[in-house]
């Protein structure tokens, strides 16, 4: 799968292209439906299926103060898109200048730079261009003027409501990990590099890897069971998401059960599996704390077995 960062790189392409367009944070089941329609349309017209997405997330440029915590970083999103059987992903840099383009101008640019573009597949609520003025109706009008076709994916519902990235973020933030996993089609995952922490866990006999996950959607503070992926192996992990994290020591720490080794600087990916307990217990001495951690680890082993 090709990953391109500018529209010019697609301008030389001769085979027709059908493009699924969206921000696709989380690449959830609704997004997967849009991309699936794109693959089908491409197969029908002997075209290549492509995904066009934007980086950073448009809200970080348009309304940075209220931008949400994201389900996926760009590398995570690209890895998930790779599994969607598309010919390539076009990552359009979302700049302030770009955000001010009129929808008609954005589309005109797109059609000029990718002459092979034959179709666009979107979700019902996709908006584009300055002040999000561009919508499905405008896109369909423009499609007749430029001679491409538009396919709109009907929204996917789960539990009487539409599956959306914001709904999944809410589910994660309120600790409903099973709901989030049902809408994502997999457990909610975060990834980050291991940084140096306070080394308190090591003294207690439970060394932990500290991860800086600022900007990622995280469940509420507490102790969690997680599957931890590191260098193509999966370990059971006990996650501590503290109530008051000290960012220089990371937003969470995870103890890899039955693992010994140096992880500093390496990348870990955690799938949140289940919550074990809240971070409300306080311990008069270290022995009590160690005893509690032992019992947490026992339960996590059972859950993940």
């Amino acid at each position, binding site marked *: 799968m090709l990953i391109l960062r500018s529209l010019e790189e697609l301008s030389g392409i001769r085979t027709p292209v059908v493009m699924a367009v969206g921000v696709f944070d989380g690449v959830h089941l609704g997004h997967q439906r849009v991309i699936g329609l794109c693959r089908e349309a491409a197969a029908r017209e002997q075209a290549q299926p492509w995904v066009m997405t934007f980086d950073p997330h448009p809200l970080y440029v348009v309304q940075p103060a209220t931008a949400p915590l994201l389900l996926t970083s760009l590398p995570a999103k690209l890895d998930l898109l790779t599994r969607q059987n598309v010919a390539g992903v076009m990552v359009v840099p979302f700049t302030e200048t770009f955000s001010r383009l009129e929808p008609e101008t954005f589309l005109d640019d797109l059609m000029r730079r990718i002459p092979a573009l034959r179709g666009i597949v979107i979700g019902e609520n996709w908006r584009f261009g300055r002040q999000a003025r561009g919508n499905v109706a405008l896109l369909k009008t423009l499609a*007749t*003027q430029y001679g491409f076709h538009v396919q709109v994916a009907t929204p996917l519902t789960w539990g009487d409501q539409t599956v959306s990235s914001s709904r999944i973020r809410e589910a994660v933030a309120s600790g409903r990990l099973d709901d989030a996993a049902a809408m994502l089609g997999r457990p909610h995952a975060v990834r980050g590099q291991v940084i140096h922490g306070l080394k308190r866990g090591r003294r207690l006999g439970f060394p932990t890897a500290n991860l800086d996950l600022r900007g990622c959607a995280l469940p509420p503070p507490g102790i969690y069971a997680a599957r931890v992926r590191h260098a193509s192996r999966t370990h059971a992990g006990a996650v501590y998401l503290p109530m008051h994290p000290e960012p220089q020591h990371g937003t969470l720490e995870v103890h890899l059960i039955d693992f010994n080794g140096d992880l500093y600087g390496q990348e870990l990916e955690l799938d949140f599996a289940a919550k074990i307990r809240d971070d409300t217990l306080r311990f008069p001495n270290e022995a009590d704390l160690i005893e509690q951690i032992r019992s947490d680890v026992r339960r996590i082993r059972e859950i993940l077995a």
Partner: protein
Amino acid sequence: MPNPHAAPLPRLDPWDGILLVDKPAGFTSHDVVAKFRGHFRLKKVGHGGTLDPAATGLLILLIGRGTRLSDRIMGSDKTYEGVMRLGIATDSQDGDGQIVAEQPAGHITLEQVQTAMTKRIGDQMQTPPMVSAVKKNGVPLYKLARKGETIEREARLIHVYRFAALGKEGPDVSFVLRCTKGTYVRTLCADIGEELGCGAHLHALRRTESGAFKLTDAVPLTEILKLDHAALCDRIIPLNRVPPLLG
């Protein structure tokens, strides 16, 4: 140390380059070149693609060594804004010709026109109209047409990128068209009129883009003729600043 045997660098005159002109209606493209050349007493002036006498908009003048860019500029894609009048077909396919048929067109909707336009997006063969500057054995077709002759013309490959019906007022439909060089806009209009069953001709035409050059950067011919030599040189895009890719 400079090589004393090196050929001297070719000196570029300040007016070697191209000039973006907004052509007025009623002049041939050649009239504009002749007026400009006479007014500024320049030797070599050409243009980068003909606009019909009635058409207005972007005409690119090639001055001095700028004439070398002729092929590149003529070969680039063009954008037009125009008005198509439904219900009246003419022999020249534009407003200058003789009316050959008149039919009611009040029932035609903007959507129907757009549908006919959408069908014409993409690659296609187009036969140039009899009233055109295309030459047959060295003789422009319009000269033969004036004598009442009609001859076989060779169809040519063109590509339409965008064809948008923007609005309708009575029988007049305003539109935007982006296409390759050598596309006869009036022929597209006449074909659409025929398909809709009412006939049509091109009523007004304005070129807004030629390759990377835009009408918004052009100056009306009357304004250009008011400039002195120094001000003219400021307006001319020198050869070394002409964008290498003309889109």
